[in-house]
């Protein structure tokens, strides 16, 4: 079994009928895809497989031998957030964070399929994702901003993030 995860080739020892989620978390120690419900109903394990969003908990390894997998770590370039990541930062679309990687990967592929998607299409496209903090308002606002192209990618969010952390400790 072979997978390309965020551009890196891996030969896997996880048995072929185990889920992609198990291989990512247990063998490759990539823990951004979350094991929420383990039956496809929460969206937290969603990753991109060959360009399409997939529930990694429902995907047996044997079905995707040789595929390219993108987790949230692979969304942006080195040192630069992707538009959807930057929009989530700007709109405070993250609370506990458990659902966020699934939401961002689904939203990223949604905007690839439907650039400029409106609010109704965004809500329909993300219908399979649960946020137990119920932060849906901010999540949808973030995706709407990314769909409008209303994201300033030149901003240095690393510095802002440090500043905010220092400020809160003072």
């Amino acid at each position, binding site marked *: 079994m072979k997978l390309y995860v965020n551009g890196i080739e891996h030969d896997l020892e996880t048995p072929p*009928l185990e889920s992609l989620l198990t291989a990512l978390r247990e063998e490759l120690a990539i823990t951004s895809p979350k094991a929420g419900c*383990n039956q496809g109903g929460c969206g937290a394990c969603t990753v991109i497989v060959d360009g399409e969003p*997939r529930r990694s908990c*429902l995907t047996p390894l044997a*079905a995707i031998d040789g595929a390219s997998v993108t987790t949230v770590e692979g969304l942006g370039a080195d040192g630069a957030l992707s538009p959807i990541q930057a929009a989530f930062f700007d709109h405070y679309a993250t609370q506990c964070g458990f659902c966020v990687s699934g939401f961002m990967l689904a939203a990223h592929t949604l905007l690839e399929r439907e650039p400029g998607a409106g609010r109704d299409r965004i809500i329909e496209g993300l*219908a*399979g994702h649960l946020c137990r903090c119920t932060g849906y308002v901010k999540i949808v606002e973030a995706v709407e901003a990314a769909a409008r192209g209303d994201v300033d990618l030149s901003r240095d969010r690393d510095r802002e993030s440090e500043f905010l952390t220092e400020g809160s400790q003072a």
Partner: protein
Amino acid sequence: MTHSTNVLVPQSPEEAVASFGDGAGITVVAGGTIVMPELSSGRLRPERALVLANAGLDGISAANGAVTIGATTPVLALVGATPEPLSTFAAYVGDYEIRSQATIGGNLCAPPGPESPRGDLQAPLLALGARIRSAGAGGERTEPVEDFLAGGEGRLVLAIEVDEPTSSGASAIGRPHAHNYTIMAVAAAAGADGVRVAVTGAGPRAQRLPSVEQALAGGADATAAAAKATDDVTPADDALASAWYRARMLPRLVEQALSQL
């Protein structure tokens, strides 16, 4: 937990049929949306698993008024590309990711769930008079979807063939969330041999409503024919809805679907 399972990944339809054999001791994995939780939890420990991802059993083709749909065609691909009311029902399954992963063959073969019925696409396939091509003990055969569903488990679905109806109808009880199984939905299709009507969610599997069909053939209007629906089914009582509610909603849904013909 799956270490002892012999995993077969056929690379062609012929290889899939050969690997399936008579189906004894084998679990078929198409989209995986129903079977993977069973495997991951250890509730299901098959001797052999047949993973169909690379078997070339997907695709939609049309010829002479009939549409042939490969067994592993994703539910998402049915939307806008197959005859109504199948297309509308497909758009109503799960969410985007589930629709792009789940297959029509898997939905057709979905056993009733522990808490509610499932297999939403069975109703439009019954309404369209679908023909099912399958392999297994005794070789390949093509049969009406009613016979396939009555035959139980143990066959490998290869393809599903439907004709374009002259008109169709679809109605459903709205879902509170994309992940709820359908409480109840009705499919109707008119063709050369009259109107077929089927319901999903009323019982463990979808079923036709012959009393409604006969009333229509006898000249009854939609309201009068729809009132016959409860002659054909004893609605289920489960976690999604009570039998009381289903019995009152079924004639309404049938009337709605028939009014679209």
